[in-house]
């Protein structure tokens, strides 16, 4: 072939390759724009190529895929210390490693881990016997308590509990162990002599923290979520008071306008109990975040002598201290320490001042204390910065040291309670705390990316889930109310939001998010990559309570499945395809990812179509519907489906409806339906 012909062919090939590449490149740009449109601002807002360089294609196509190939190379060896206990001789620290499924025993003389003991899934809390021989660990995702022989360094017996065991406490005789079961909202009373659960007591909604009074006579369990209230009434959250003598519930008391009570502790004299809590403003239009219009954070105080209850703000007029988790009182009853897992602070409170304020409230000298942002100045003496996401704390028996689980930096901070200085750190792992997905997890749990540190993602999505509340977020107050949705296992369920407007989590967490939710500077592209990677690939559902992995459907669930998939009514009429449950809710995510009008809009909604929600683990996501009107699944059809628009169901008998609900409750993670 002549050289000129060769050149012509090469030229044509070059042009073709250029055109293909150019078109492909442009397609990539278009795809990118569609997935992230408007999410990058600033100098590069109008520069498509710069935006791609910032929000890397690789990030989205590696870390945001739940089953992504590259995820296997992501750093996984995190400990994530969650809660702690200390031996009575102050020689050993016991630490639950939430992400390593282990209990760690730390020698406090050398600050070294001397034992790592495998336990169940997602260990939450630990209690240690007085003689230091036994440790009890709640396995939140295994529904059990591991009994650990400390000297042997082995987990022996496993005792079944209710669903999602979290906080636990030994009674003073160490004969019974009280375990707060978060997911089944009850308390297991475990007979330690028999090594079995002896009874189960009904608790509040999502009980988590539990503790026993200094005299050993009563056990208090605090809850994360509100008990059932009338629609659009403020939440109120239960503290369950148990008589430790009879092991029966003696009283149910409620903190009004509060939820997310994580832990509880007592004054040494036993006259006061303290709990951390969040005061959401979900009924108030979210017109601003300033001055606590979205939520505030407080210390709940209960007088066990008078029954009076108080909520004392932990915030300040221009600074908020998000997500209080643990509260610990010094043995002399003079100081309280509160870990703010969203703010990365420890607040130090003067208990005598707290008592003075309470007295002034009783005397009517302080009004509206719970909403007074100036009040904290009266009793908070210091704010101590910590590592990322401080969770559980424990006080040394002499009260001189406070050990703090800095969950997302894999450290235990040791605070000198006399000098109020952090005096040392105990490292729990050598894993890279700056790796992309870890960084995303830290961002998720941190309030620093909200105006005046108001709240974190966790604040409305505790435990990476949802808080069970409906917020008033629309431009016009009272319209388009929005029921918070879970963030668990979102991959494959796009688009997002009830109106389906966000095609990706990049959009969900991008510029609009900072404009209307966090109201401060948007995430940098690097941080957005990390946050989206964490949300889409790392958040899992706990095992389904109604159908364990690999379990067969029960008879009722099987009948319910048939109803879910039925094509004819009870009297034999054909059900139009669009009116069949499975049409809009097909597995594996049980959503067609489209918007439909199922007759659930109200005159307060600006549109009638809503995105079909996915149904994986729907049992844990009450209330239901876009505006949270339905307290139970049953109400979806018995109250809000008069015209059979939300699936033909009005011909079903009560038993059939029960079966259908049994089936819905059993729907687990999408991976089982692929």
């Amino acid at each position, binding site marked *: 072939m002549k050289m000129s012909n060769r050149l012509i062919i090469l030229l044509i090939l070059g042009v073709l390759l250029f055109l293909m590449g150019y078109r492909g490149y442009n397609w990539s740009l278009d795809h990118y724009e569609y997935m992230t449109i408007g999410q990058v601002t600033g100098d590069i807002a109008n520069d498509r190529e710069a935006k791609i360089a910032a929000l890397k294609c690789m990030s989205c196509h590696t870390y945001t895929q739940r089953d992504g190939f590259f995820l296997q190379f992501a750093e996984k060896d995190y400990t994530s210390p969650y809660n702690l206990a200390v031996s009575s001789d102050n020689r050993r620290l016991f630490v639950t490693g939430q992400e390593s499924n282990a209990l760690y025993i730390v020698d406090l003389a050398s600050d070294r881990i001397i034992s790592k003991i495998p336990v169940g899934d997602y260990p939450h809390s630990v209690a240690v016997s007085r003689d230091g021989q036994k440790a009890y660990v709640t396995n939140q995702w295994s529904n059990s308590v591991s009994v650990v022989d400390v000297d042997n360094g082995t987990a022996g017996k496993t005792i079944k509990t209710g669903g999602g065991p979290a906080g636990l406490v030994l009674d003073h005789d160490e004969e019974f162990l009280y375990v707060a079961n978060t997911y089944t909202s009850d308390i297991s009373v475990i007979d330690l002599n028999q090594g079995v659960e002896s009874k189960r007591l009904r608790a509040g909604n999502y009980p988590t923290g539990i503790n026993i009074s200094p005299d050993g006579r009563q056990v208090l369990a605090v809850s994360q979520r509100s008990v059932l209230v009338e629609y659009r009434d403020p939440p109120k959250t239960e503290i369950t008071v148990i008589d430790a003598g009879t092991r029966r519930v003696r009283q149910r008391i409620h903190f009004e306008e509060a939820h997310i009570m994580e832990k509880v502790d007592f004054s040494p004299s036993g006259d006061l109990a303290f709990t951390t809590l969040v005061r959401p403003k979900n009924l*108030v239009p979210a017109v601003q975040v300033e001055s606590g219009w979205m939520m505030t954070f407080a210390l709940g105080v209960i007088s066990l002598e008078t029954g009076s209850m108080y909520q004392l703000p932990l915030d300040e*007029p221009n600074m908020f201290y998000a997500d209080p988790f643990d509260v610990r009182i010094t043995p002399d009853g003079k100081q309280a320490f509160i870990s703010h897992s969203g703010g990365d602070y420890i607040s130090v409170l003067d208990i005598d001042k707290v008592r003075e304020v309470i007295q002034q409230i009783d005397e009517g000298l302080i009004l509206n204390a719970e909403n007074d942002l100036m009040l904290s100045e009266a009793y908070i003496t210091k704010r101590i910065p910590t590592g990322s996401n401080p969770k559980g704390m424990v006080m040394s028996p002499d009260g001189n040291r406070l050990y703090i689980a800095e969950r997302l930096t894999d450290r235990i901070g040791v605070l000198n309670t006399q000098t109020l200085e952090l005096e040392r750190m105990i490292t729990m792992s050598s894993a890279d705390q700056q790796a992309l997905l870890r960084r995303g997890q830290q961002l998720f749990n941190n309030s620093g990316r909200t105006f005046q540190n108001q709240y974190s993602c966790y604040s409305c999505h505790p435990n990476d889930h949802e808080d069970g509340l409906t917020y008033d977020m629309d431009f016009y107050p009272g319209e388009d109310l929005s029921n918070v949705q879970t963030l668990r296992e979102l991959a494959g369920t796009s688009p997002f939001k009830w109106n389906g407007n966000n095609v990706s989590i990049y959009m969900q967490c991008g510029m609009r998010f900072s404009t209307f939710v966090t109201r401060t500077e948007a995430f940098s592209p690097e941080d957005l990559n990390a946050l989206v990677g964490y949300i889409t690939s790392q958040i899992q559902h706990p095992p389904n309570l109604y159908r364990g992995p690999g379990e067969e459907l029960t008879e009722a669930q099987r009948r319910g499945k048939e109803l879910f998939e039925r094509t004819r009514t009870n009297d034999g009429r054909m059900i139009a395809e669009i009116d069949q449950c499975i049409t809009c809710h097909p597995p594996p995510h049980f959503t067609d990812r489209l918007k439909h009008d199922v007759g659930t809009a109200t005159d307060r909604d600006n549109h009638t179509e809503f995105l079909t929600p996915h149904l994986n683990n729907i049992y844990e996501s009450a209330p239901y519907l876009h505006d949270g009107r339905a307290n139970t699944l049953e109400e979806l059809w018995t109250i809000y489906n008069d015209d059979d628009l939300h699936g033909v169901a009005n011909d079903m008998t009560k038993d059939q409806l029960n079966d259908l609900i049994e089936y819905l409750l059993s729907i687990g993670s999408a991976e089982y339906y692929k």
Partner: protein
Amino acid sequence: MYKKGTVIFILIFAAVYIGMSLLNRSLPDEHIIMTRVSADSESGLMGTGMEKLELQNAQIVSFDPKKPESSLKILTKNFASAMSPELSLDNRQLVFSGKKDIDDNWQIWMMNLNNLRATQITDNGRDCFDPVFLPDDGIAFSCTWQDERLGNGSTLYTANADGSDLNAVTFHLHTDHSSTMLHDGRILSVSQKVYPETDISNLLALRPDGTKSGLFYDIPDGYQIISKARETIENKIFFVAKNQQNGLSTAVLQFSYNNPYNSKRTVYSSGGGQIHSLYPMNDGNLLISYRENVSDTHGIYMLNQQGESEPVHIDGSYHFFEPVIIEEKPFIPRKLPSALTDARNFGIMVFVETPQALAETGSFEGHKIQVMGVNGIMDEFPVLQDGSFYIRVDEKTPMRIQRVNQDDEVVKGPTSWLWLMNGERRGFTGWDERQLNSPANRVPEAINHPYVEISVLDSPVLVIQNDEHALSEAGYENE
């Protein structure tokens, strides 16, 4: 291995490069930039807000505190007067107010600190002053307005660094001036109501898009703020205040960003002397402009945290004031997103009462809310049972709100002048403008009703219109 010529070439190239780099750094770190005026110029010297526009023959100068014997460098030689220097976040630019000719208006200028060339940013028939850099590299500044009936005041504006995209961001009958940036991304300005007239100046905070404006700190009774209020890395805010009972007495006051009203502290009291202005340094010390006696000139002093001062630069021939120092900024203010939209030419406001007000008042039977504009009551409507109200108001309409009882007696308010931007949403809890209470978690009764659309019967008489402030399309350089 290498040719000798190559090595020499590389060495020469490196030397030239380093030399050029050094030459470019006209003002290295830790230089102090400040305003000076001759010793006999007292007019406007201790003035606040628009009073300082009377300053004549002022110059912006720089000074190396490490070489006190070295001479000052005049940065604004070609200006008839220049003042109020502020550094950009990267310390590469200086923005200031200046006038080329004695009869000119004060305008905003920007100087490149590498070559000391100045570019005019604003060009209009009003005095523009007190500029400050925004975190997005834009600027905010004040410009005056006059009205026969309402008096004289100044409005806060924002613009890009080249003067484009000029927007007024305050719409009240105040004098807004002496702006700085808070770490949270808001502008902090000194604001004094001019209609109805008052002597009290307070600190106003607002987002750079003009939304969420509100009282940030009301100055203690008897004091008047006379300097910019500046935030430190420890989130403390310092300013100079004048004791109005004793016009000569000044003090450096401090409060914390987090909790302004529980943290006020007098850092330094001038005694018989006078403090003019201050600038917090990263080491925790303050640069202050101070004179021991009114017969002296102001010099620059360093005030340490123990309240001890030592002179940095004094010259009996000049007053020195408004110091800024070239050092790393203690914080980069957040770039706040804006929710403003052209699709809405109004804003909405929801007001909720505090529980104690509800308990104290008992019933709002017969009570009315009155929304007052510049020329009187624009609208009134009955108070709902829980005291809440929900209004929609045309954008940028100055208004004050009050509650009257059945006898038309004012029970609450009137508030300060308020306005809403296009697409803005605001919430207020109770009538205390410090907004120190969060709302109770209840559905406000008002939002179960349609909003009250406020009839803006009298057009707002705020005299500033954006087109009056049209800028020169291309600024001209200081020759």
